[in-house]
């Protein structure tokens, strides 16, 4: 009567094969991909955070941590960003170029975007193509060509600040056009047509209707231009005449190839904060202006994506 059926215990799995089963279980969540993605994020961002950490190091080393200090920002009387004349002038030059770039490239780019979106005559297609090329031309090719332009054709410009501003504007215009044009397409023409039906001339419709609608895109593109100008290394370097016309990225490049002090990390950190603040501000303004619009979220994503893909 007593037929005791011995229940076979499942074979004990090793820790490794249980882990593998957990990781690759096809019916569970894609844990391998989750792990992979987060590892990528760690790899992409942690080195930068470590570089930021060492900008606060209390010694001259960029590799051995010796306590927190702000000496490389302003404490050190010789080598800090605040006291080192090279670093200070580099920061000033970077900000000067970025400001001039925003002031020149934004209006030109906005006008070009509106013009290209509304004009369909014979010149519009070549102009459209021309606008796209700076986005894909390798910077070294642009740097060489602008250098030769300013040293052999427009010799009155030469190298230096003016040349750098002209170069920055040249690669920035296309970014403005791409961002503003995305917004123009999503607005459509109906508002302007309504204004025209109500008797507004094209200029009035533009000023009273289109421009207010374009404000978020204009501010966003100004922020992006500021950021890409601060970030630029190649064009600034090719058009620099040394000394005071060297920007922060040029100094980082020079210092990295020689023997960098933590002050290099400090100035790089300052630049990173400036760029991220500018881009975030641009994004928040865009969000605030387009809130409540139908598909607003999608547009912001599409606009941001267009801007980023162009980079």
């Amino acid at each position, binding site marked *: 009567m007593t037929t005791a059926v011995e229940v076979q215990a499942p074979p004990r799995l090793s820790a490794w094969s249980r882990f593998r089963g957990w990781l690759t279980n096809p019916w569970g*969540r*894609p844990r391998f*991909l989750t792990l992979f*993605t987060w590892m990528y*994020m760690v790899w*992409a961002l942690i*080195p*930068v955070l*470590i*570089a930021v950490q060492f900008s606060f190091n209390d010694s001259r080393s*960029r*590799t*051995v941590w010796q306590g927190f200090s702000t000496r490389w920002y302003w404490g050190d009387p010789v080598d800090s960003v605040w006291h080192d004349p090279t670093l200070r002038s580099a920061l000033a030059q970077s900000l000067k170029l970025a400001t001039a770039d925003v002031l020149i490239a934004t209006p030109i780019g906005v006008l*070009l975007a*509106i*013009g290209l979106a*509304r*004009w369909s*005559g014979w*010149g*519009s297609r070549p*102009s*459209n193509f*021309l*606008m796209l*090329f*700076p986005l*894909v*031309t*390798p*910077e*070294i*090719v642009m740097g*060489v*060509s602008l250098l030769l*332009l300013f040293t*052999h*054709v427009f010799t009155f410009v030469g190298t230096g600040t003016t040349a750098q501003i*002209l*170069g920055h504007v*040249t690669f920035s215009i296309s970014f403005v056009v791409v961002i503003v044009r*995305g917004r123009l*397409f999503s607005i459509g023409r109906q508002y302007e047509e309504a204004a025209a039906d109500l008797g507004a001339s094209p200029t009035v419709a533009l000023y009273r209707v289109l421009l207010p609608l374009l404000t978020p895109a204009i501010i966003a593109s100004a922020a992006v231009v500021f950021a890409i100008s601060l970030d630029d290394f190649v064009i600034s370097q090719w058009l620099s005449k040394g000394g005071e016309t060297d920007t*922060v*990225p040029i100094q*980082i*490049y020079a210092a*990295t*190839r020689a023997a*960098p002090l933590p002050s290099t*990390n400090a100035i*790089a950190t300052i*630049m*990173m904060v400036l760029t*991220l603040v500018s881009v975030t501000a641009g994004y928040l303004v865009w969000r605030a202006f387009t809130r409540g619009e139908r598909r607003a979220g999608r547009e912001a994503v599409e606009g*941001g*994506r267009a801007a*980023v*893909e162009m*980079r």
Partner: protein
Amino acid sequence: MYRRWLWPGFALPGTVWLIVLFLVPFYAVVAVAFGSVDPILLQPVPVWNPLEWNVGWIVEVLERLAPNGEWFGVAVRTIVYVAIALGLSLLIGYPVAYYIARHAGRTKSLLLILLIAPLWINYLMRMLAWVNLLAPDGYVNRFLTYTHVLAEPRDWLGGRASTVILALVYGYIPFMILPLFAALDRIDRSHLEAARDLGASPFSTFLHVTLPLSKAGILGGAVLIALPMFGDYYTPNVVSGAPQTSMIGNQIDFYFHYGGQPTIGAATTVVLAAFLTVLMAYYVWTIHRASQEARTA
């Protein structure tokens, strides 16, 4: 009358700017590359008339790049580095983009922000970060010697091809993941469901539906990062600086900034630009087509 000229008038300043400061400079490079050199001052003399062009410099650059030429090694190295870096970027980038587009759920916005962040961190700052980490007493060497993977700290920054390739991947991969993400995110989920309903396994759904639909993103991302990689000179300079890792961009940089022979540099630039024109045209054509679709949509 004024209505007819209003919109072209808007486009005029930008178009003129790009003609004067983008197209004319190209012609300036070509004029220098096909020009002559002042025998006394050794300065390049551009020749603007195509009928008087001197092809000597271009021929010289092509001879250097040809097999047995002085730069053959550089040319092969550039192509190999870019090819390996592209392959690695795709291998790392595709799963990341796929996960964020398909499975990230509530963490999607956070992951997107983290994905975009490196684009707004200066390229040289990111290279500096690795120079710090790879220094003889940096974290990488200390970790590897602590775990006894290496008996002694290794000189990572002394002209290693692997360091340069990994630096290229690190530098450019964020620019590739975004187009990949955009392409994968756009795929309509009903296509995938249809494939599964018709009995396809997850793997064959991926192979026959997801992969073909993301082809545009793969090509776009690859072209987008291949172009700047081919013209890169600063990455090898920063993480290696040794002649055995120099790329074609380093030759251009050298002849302009150190070698004092801008004509050779200009001729090399023309050859490089001609080589890259196909890639550039492909990319411009796809953006143009996309914007035409947006315009008519």
